[in-house]
């Protein structure tokens, strides 16, 4: 993974977290992790985890926590944790077929 790629991934994760930290409740990291699970390919997730594991910086606190969640819990576990907190998972939920 090149430096520009890791920079890009950090930027993307921070951007996602920057939205969720503005939302009510204390689920920003969980929701960021869920977003990453819903839209990122495995390799991007793995690259970002590697980057963090090797001491890479630049992630905001919520984004960093999200990376740990992505690393340590499966996507379904995150979804269930969100559901318990009363939050949906817009990425994973069926969109237009709800009707």
């Amino acid at each position, binding site marked *: 993974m090149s430096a520009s790629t890791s920079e890009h991934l950090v930027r993307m994760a921070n951007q996602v977290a920057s*939205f969720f930290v503005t939302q009510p409740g204390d689920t920003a990291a969980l929701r960021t992790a869920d977003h990453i699970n819903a*839209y990122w390919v495995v390799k991007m997730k793995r690259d970002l985890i590697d980057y963090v594991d090797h001491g890479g910086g630049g992630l905001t606190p919520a984004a960093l926590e999200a990376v740990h969640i992505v690393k340590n819990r499966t996507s379904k576990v995150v979804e269930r944790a969100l559901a318990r907190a009363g939050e949906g998972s817009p990425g994973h939920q069926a969109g*237009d*077929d*709800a009707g």
Partner: protein
Amino acid sequence: MSLVYEIDYGTPAARRSAPAAETLVTLTIDGQEVTVPAGTSIMRAAMEMGTKIPKLCATDMMDAFGSCRMCLVEIEGRNGTPASCTTPVAEGIKVTTQNARLAKLRRGVMELYISDHPLDCLTCAANGDCELQDVAGEVGLRDVRYGYAGENHVFAKSGADENPLFMAKDESNPYFTYEPSKCIVCSRCVRACDEVQGTFALTIAGRGFDSRVSPGQSEPFMGSECVSCGACVQACPTATLTEKKVIELGQPEHSVVTTCAYCGVGCSFKAEMRGEEVVRMVPYKDGKANRGHSCVKGRFAWGYATHKERILNPMIRASTADPWREVSWEEAIAHTASEFKRIQAKYGRNSIGGITSSRCTNEETYLVQKMVRAAFGNNNVDTCARVCHSPTGYGLKTTFGTSAGTQDFDSVEDVDVVVIIGANPTDAHPVFASRMKQRLREGARLIVIDPRRIDLVRSAHIEADHHLPLLPGTNVAMLTALAHVIVTEGLADEAFIRERCDLEAYAGWAAFVSETRNSPEALEKTLGVPAADVRAAARLYATGGNGAIYYGLGVTEHSQGSTAVMGIANLAMATGNIGRPGVGVNPLRGQNNVQGSCDMGSFPHEYTGYRHVSDDKVRGSFEEAWGVSLDPEPGLRIPNMLDAAVDGGFKAIYIQGEDILQSDPNTRHVSAGLEAMECVVVQDLFLNETAIHAHVFLPGSTFLEKDGTFTNAERRIQLVRKVMTPKNGYADWEVTQLLSNALGYPMNYSHPSEIMDEIARLTPTFAGVSFDTLEREGSVQWPCNEANPTGSPVMHAATFARGKGNFVITEYIATDEKVGPRFPLLLTTGRILSQYNVGAQTRRTDNSMWHDEDVLEIHPVDAEDRGIKDRDWVKLQSRAGEITLHAKITDRVAPGVVYTTFHHPSTQANVITTDYSDWATNCPEYKVTAVQVSGSNGPSDWQERYDAFALQSRRIVAEPAE
């Protein structure tokens, strides 16, 4: 086959929303009783029972005019012979449409018309399609007693002298001619321009015998304000306004109803044919999106289908430095399949992917994503919606529970307050814009939120109540400020919110927007718009009746695009403007089938109908139907594919009908990504810019050459019908099928209807859709299923798709793309009427006569600071790159803001745009780039190098001599 015949009722139907139209009136016409809605004209009532009253100035696309005096009738107990077009029906009246007196009057009038009309019928282009000729026949004209000796408009010479009344033919417009000598001054063209199109480019100059149709102030058509929509040509009852193609080819002999392949409006057209040759495209009155109207693109700009630069044979090459070599379809497909297999064997299953096309049909798009998921064995599929409306999907799904627009286009007829945010409908969605303008001229109010003064802000008989010219990148702050006013001034629709929305979410949101820091006053400097204007606009939207928001890429193509979409949804819910005609949230989709390509599972994380690939039940249904096991992890999005390519892990791509090199941001990055791949396959009509980096070129087919469906911006699914054999040999779905078979995943469709049947089986929202349904209904808007067998014009009518509407907090976070000393101006980008997207099609038509280059709009103050004059070459620089183009000095843009279009590859506007993107969807931030503008002598080094490289890369090796 024969021509599709459409009845002309003479005057429009009584407005469905007019209260009077609910009352029915019974009258007697020629002894026969007929019942019609009040407000209907006698002419229309007669036609509805099958009696055509002779007419020349009346047609049902526009209001009655009463000038030609052909449609006279007698009404028992009333004096005289009133015109049936301008006389409304009344209860119990008895009408006579034909008797000796009426016949004599009509024949007399007709005789006068013909006394100043050439008698060259046999050689006239309208022969066979001339209403004047028809009516002359209907009234039994046998003689013209007046002769042609006197004053006339017919002959160029009067004896030996010039005839001062004669006007030569105007052939300035590339698509139609204006031949004044054949004009009967019925004013249909003038009224079509006013009432249907809303441009007011035409008028009748002079009085009495001097009356002439005049474009602008007696200018040639091309020099006038005419936008070449074709409404006047369609309205003309004679040969005065005639398509040049009809003059060249003669009258069509059969026609087929199909759907335009340009923008997301999805106009319905009759393709009028001679054999396999298109004579003309005529808008279809039963088309529910366009209601019989068209624009210069769909009506006229279809000549690209037979353009000499179209590539008709497959081509391959080992390296992009080599010239192209034409090969057979078999060789091209076998080569591609073997390359894909080799690359997957060497670099792994995830090293290849595909891009579906928003210009191809639903069936073709579905097939590409099916091939990627089933034959490639990964989810690396994406579509160009990534770069336009993906934030709409995410934003509306989060707030409403479904990602699509909430209304149909007809809804605009019931709007009281139109809000346009970051959209330019008169250029990008012209036919819908005409319908919107009709409503605005009827008195609907208008709020425009856009950095640039778009045409709708002030045009003929339309003036926005409020134009809020915000700084690019501040949409979210603006939407929150509007919400602040609505909530703090007590204008929210509390009954609606209590009944329909999540109250806890509302309470949190209301508290957030009410904070002083979100007031228009506090945000005045951020927005660059006076607080009083913002307050007034918010009050108007909240209290002006039915409020509808129409928005475009000026909302989505930002780092906070998804947040802004949620902000729009919040406003609609807070004011109760959702769930009925005349209101709603209306994303104006860019391409003909961008809605459809999203619906068809083109995104790397979801199957058809927006269902995530990780959903075991959904995935299971596809695994069962397709007979393969499918990857539960999302695949790569387009920008991620390019990143991965540069990084070395992504090596091959199949791109159907998409020109990412020109349309995607940061051209250098796209170029580097493509260069790093070992097999780039481009399937397109032309050697587009992306093909410069391609190793395989598979020729594509046009919308005229295949069957299928497109889904427009109102979720309307419409049939595309084949009118000619594919010149390249195969429709695009057949090419995908060939490739899939060569890859070892069998597909055996014999017609696109079978593909739609499969989609319907696997997708609950499409369960009721089939080619048969579409043949029967004309079109349907999804969801179309057991609950809504004929589709759903208005969504969220009783409840939101997600249950309760969800208010989402929209904190404004400024983009990282900031102006500074090096790049002090903000560039924003957009489109122009005559060109479409990357221009691959429109640039290969005469549409380029209206717009032959991209220019940079710059405010006079910024221009003067830099010593720039109008039409100067200027250099436009951002941190991503630099280009050179001509400057256009205008106060349409505010100081500090510059604007350009991206239609021409020689400009390469996307060399300038950056790779910043929306936080949720990676939709690129096209609409905000910090730039500097300075004087220049001509094209930049990059442009010159690129042009030379592009030329080199397009070489096709000559056929060896036999």
